[in-house]
């Protein structure tokens, strides 16, 4: 699969995955574009779709860690200054209550559980998910069940809204 095919085929689903993962469509857009830039500079990628998802996931995790460190730094130094740019995506975008509730539920998951559930939503097999998160195929089902149960606890009101 060449670059153009990969772009045509996966750009939309990658954005969907990234925006679901991060809750920030602007960040998701940047991450997807960065993933494609990296793909254009990389040769010999065999499983292009998995490769792209892996890059996108890692970029989002890195940014998440940076954001966490910034947050810790602010706490340690007791900063009371207003941030020049909003930190939480929820503060940037006007969202419905439903979107906020779903976001909070997803944020309650570990990065691995979120990756597992969202890759599953994109139709990846248990084997592919296992490769992505570094576990065995057999344990993916258990991870999914646990993550779903955890998520469901936080989606009680969402269930009522979308029933």
């Amino acid at each position: 699969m060449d670059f153009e095919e990969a772009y045509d085929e996966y750009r939309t689903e990658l954005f969907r995955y990234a925006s679901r993962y991060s809750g920030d469509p602007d960040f998701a857009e940047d991450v997807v574009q960065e993933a494609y830039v990296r793909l254009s500079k990389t040769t010999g990628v065999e499983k292009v779709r998995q490769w792209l998802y892996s890059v996108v996931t890692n970029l989002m995790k890195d940014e998440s860690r940076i954001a966490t460190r910034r947050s810790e730094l602010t706490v340690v130094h007791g900063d009371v200054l207003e941030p020049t740019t909003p930190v939480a995506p929820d503060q940037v975008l006007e969202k419905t209550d439903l979107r906020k509730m779903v976001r909070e539920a997803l944020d309650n998951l570990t990065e691995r559980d979120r990756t597992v559930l969202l890759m599953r939503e994109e139709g990846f097999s248990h084997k592919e998910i296992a490769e992505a998160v570094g576990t065995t195929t057999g344990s993916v089902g258990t991870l999914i069940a646990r993550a779903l149960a955890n998520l469901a606890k936080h989606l009680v009101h969402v269930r009522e809204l979308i029933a």
Partner: protein
Amino acid sequence: MTATPNNHIDVAALVGLIDGCLSPADVAVARTHIATCLPCRESLNRLSADSNLLTKALLQTDFPVPPSLCGSRAVVVENSPPKHSWLVAAAIITLVVVGVSPLGALISDTIRSVIGKTASDAPAIPVTVAPEPEPAASEAESESAISFRPATSRVTVNVLGASYVFLRPASGIGVRASASSDGVEFVVAGDRLNVIVGNENPVDLTIWLPLSTEGLSLLADGAQVADVGTGELDEMRIMGVLEIPVQ
């Protein structure tokens, strides 16, 4: 497939059953057991319900795909706007140098080799999404866009679920349409939008449909060439755009 000490099916296998990841033999064993085991049936139903809840919740809260990811391939590689001011400055300087200096050709070749692909290298794209005019953010969430390049001189879009089609309404409710050429004429008649392309081919057309749209059919020179049902419309709204070839 493993069973719990009580001979119930373990949760991983139940997920595998939902996801279609079990072997045919394991599926048969699981289905036989579940048919007679209430706890396993309840576990399966709960997992399935939680799974469906997540899917529905995600679909209803997805963000629209940004215009930069809706464009043609060449647009993203060549025209993706840099978000940092120094990149903008660098790009402008590069363009100036490329335009006025013999060094330009060398720099251009270097850029090409780094990027790998350019607009001129890209193959012809039969169906593209016209990026202009961009809908406002609020409109983008409540509309779907179809984009196509017709090969015929006359295209009709039947908008199902609408008593009348309003073209470019001031209220924002209705069908908006645009063409890459000024010579294209849009005429509404009841629930139909007639597009008279004339001799303007090739031309790219984009039509934004309101949420009330239940389906649509496209006719080229009177013959039906595409039929979009509710499911595909839903997908359009999820994906933000559906590209329909009418060639």
